């Protein structure tokens, strides 16, 4: 019961609060919130929406995992955005240039993506570890530089080719593509969705079942305690950011290998920031992140459906933004409430002990320090 209250209640409250906020905004602008809600729910059953949601969620899941790896160590890798875009671009260039047998080709593309992402994050990691530069600032700057680098890489001066009116990289040959699973009228599920799922399991295993995961979380919680336990914090910073960057490097690949087949100037952007939001929603837990990713993708798709019935689609952005902000506030409120409840309980126990001088042991006293 207690666990339900602290873990599940805050996000539920936050979603409810955000929905109420949006309902008020819609009422003010003269739209009917109930119609909007009905449209949002019924759209899931229509056409390929359900599959689209799952596909988007798989991509968001990777982005959020990348963020969560950093969060576990209290590192804010704001640079997922630049890492995944640069990685997708480089992977597309390499994938379009090499000729390899089917499975190997795909593996090479995946590897190039992960390595590029890790290398780009590695700049921030080295700056943090050896020059003491805050990873927040350096990754934000690297995001901008990545945008410039991508524009240069896919320009016709470098690796780009002109296809119609659009500049793109060389398309990837069928041997490198991951076709996906057709579901008839419902659309086609990305093949790399299994990669997302596998990485989710690997993430859980790494953090919960290995010594490395323990060290990682320990250096995030208390660098001094971790150092006293023999953890080299500088090494942990570098490894955590490299891992985060490597996962980020895979974010763009399900769409690249399953749908787009080449990187263009119109390739999707913004997944990095979505990943941050989802990691916060899911509290860095692999299952929580999965639920958050599905919710986010559902809201994204709702924008289109809402547009069709004349409700401003931007309401979805407000909903997403307010969910993130209210979920972190809700966790804080619940945390304070729990702390106060704990203190009351301990105080009651102490009073009870004072009332009967014989004493019943020190069961309550130990837990006072836990919450603060």
């Amino acid at each position, binding site marked *: 019961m207690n666990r339900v209250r602290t873990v599940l209640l805050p996000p539920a409250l936050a979603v409810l609060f955000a929905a109420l906020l949006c309902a008020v905004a819609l009422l003010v602008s003269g739209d009917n919130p109930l119609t909007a809600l009905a449209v949002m729910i019924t759209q899931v059953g229509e056409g390929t929406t359900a599959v689209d949601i799952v596909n988007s969620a798989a991509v968001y899941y990777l982005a959020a995992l990348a963020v969560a790896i950093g969060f576990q160590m209290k590192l804010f890798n704001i640079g997922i955005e630049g890492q995944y875009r640069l990685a997708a671009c480089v992977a597309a260039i390499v994938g379009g240039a090499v000729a390899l047998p089917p499975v190997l080709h795909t593996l090479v593309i995946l590897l190039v993506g992960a390595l590029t992402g890790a290398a780009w994050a590695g700049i921030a990691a080295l700056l943090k570890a050896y020059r003491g530069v805050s990873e927040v600032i350096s990754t*934000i700057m690297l995001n901008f530089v990545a945008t410039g680098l991508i524009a240069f890489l896919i320009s016709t001066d470098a690796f780009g080719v002109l296809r119609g009116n659009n500049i793109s990289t060389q398309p990837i040959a069928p041997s490198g593509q991951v076709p996906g699973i057709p579901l008839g009228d419902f659309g086609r599920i990305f093949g790399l969705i299994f990669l997302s799922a596998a990485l989710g399991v690997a993430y859980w295993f790494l953090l919960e079942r290995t010594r490395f995961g323990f060290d990682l979380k320990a250096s995030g919680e208390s660098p001094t305690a971790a150092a006293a336990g023999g953890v080299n914090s500088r090494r942990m910073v570098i490894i955590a950011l490299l891992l985060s960057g490597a996962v980020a490097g895979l974010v763009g690949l399900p769409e690249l290998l399953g749908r787009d087949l080449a990187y263009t100037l119109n390739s999707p952007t913004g997944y990095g920031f979505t990943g941050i939001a989802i990691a916060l929603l899911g509290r860095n837990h692999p299952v929580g992140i999965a639920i958050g990713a599905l919710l986010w993708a559902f809201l994204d798709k709702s924008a289109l459906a809402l547009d069709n019935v004349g409700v401003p689609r931007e309401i979805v952005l407000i909903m997403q933004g307010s969910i993130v902000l209210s979920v*972190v506030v809700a966790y804080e409120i619940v945390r304070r409430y729990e702390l106060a409840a704990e203190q009351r309980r301990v105080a009651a126990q102490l009073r009870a002990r004072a009332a009967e001088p014989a004493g019943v042991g020190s069961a309550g006293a130990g837990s006072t320090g836990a919450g603060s």
Partner: protein
Amino acid sequence: MTAVAERKAPTGPLRGRRLPGWARSALVVAIGIAILAVTVTLTGQVQLTSSGTAQAAVRLLLPILLAGLGGLWSERAGVVNIGLEGMMILGTWGAAWAGYQWGPWAALLGGIVFGALGGLLHAVATVTFAVNHIVSGVAITLLGLGVTKYLASLVFVPITSNPRESPRVEGFTEFSIPGLSQGAAALEDQQRVVVSDVAGLLGGLVTDLTPLVVIGFALVPISYYLLWHTRFGLRLRSCGENPVAAESLGVNVYRYKYFGVLISGGLAGLGGAALVLNPGQLGYLEGQTGGRGYIGLAAMIFGNWRPAGLLAGSALFGYVDGLQLRAGGEAVHALLYTATLIAVVVAVYWVARRAWVPAAVALGAGVVVYAVYWSIDTVPREFASYAPQLVTLVVLAVAAQYLRPPATAGEEYRRGEGD
């Protein structure tokens, strides 16, 4: 560089006496202009110091400067403000909405109010609820973008039938400082070494000004005075340096943090208004901030969390941006030459102080930059636009140890829980 000099001066082997701060800044500016003049003479890139470039630079630096000042007020109070970008976006909408109805002064007010609303949200989350500052900032940028797009489609669509654009906003009438402006233009036309360069740069600063430019530049000394020479400022900064000590002396830390973040939001919103009132393109345009909130943050870090340094940072970024817009990659290419000269000057400075390692590093950097300059003819446009971010990365990599941020910026503080 000033920060470097500050640290080293008392123990420097050459002399113990330090130049006063204003003299050092003036010296740095003078050396900078001299180096630019030499570059112009040797490379023939007249646009480097033309009044047109200076004018473009002023227009481009203004939003960055205001966002940077916003970051300064917030971080001095101990709250990291990654949400500047979101507050700026909110400011652009507020400015356009108020501006197209009631004119440019209303636009300024609208920008400030909407930016401050974003700041209020940040303050509630970070100060009252002790939410992580970065988290709240990211969320506010998301939310600011959403709210702005929603409001734009709601309010502007009936008028312009385009959710990405507002109706045209009336701008300020531009004015030039009489006498100075023409005199500078005349001197610039004579194309004399150094004199014309100085005249060009200064001329750009006094030609076609708007009240907003004057306000923006005035806010730098005003911020300095308020933060460093008033009781209010001392208390606000103490909340960023050591909130527990401030609390023990009876300062209401929460209130000062709220002040800092609200002012921060207002300034970022004003930066948004500066974009809306930019003479080139009057009105709200979706995505017009283009990450300038983050560049403002970078300018603040470049300036070592100080108003004058921040001005230098935004001037540098605005200058490179303006140069790239007016004269393209070849002029930016010439800046590499300037960078080489700067590296040499820095190396000489360190040699004079008998600091051999920094001197060697500076010289090595100069050699690398010169090799780049020599091997390419023009800087690709894609990189020229991101010069500010690259410069910030380099400054952080080289000088992070000399930077001195407020001691508890970004740390959570809860009233009465200090130890």
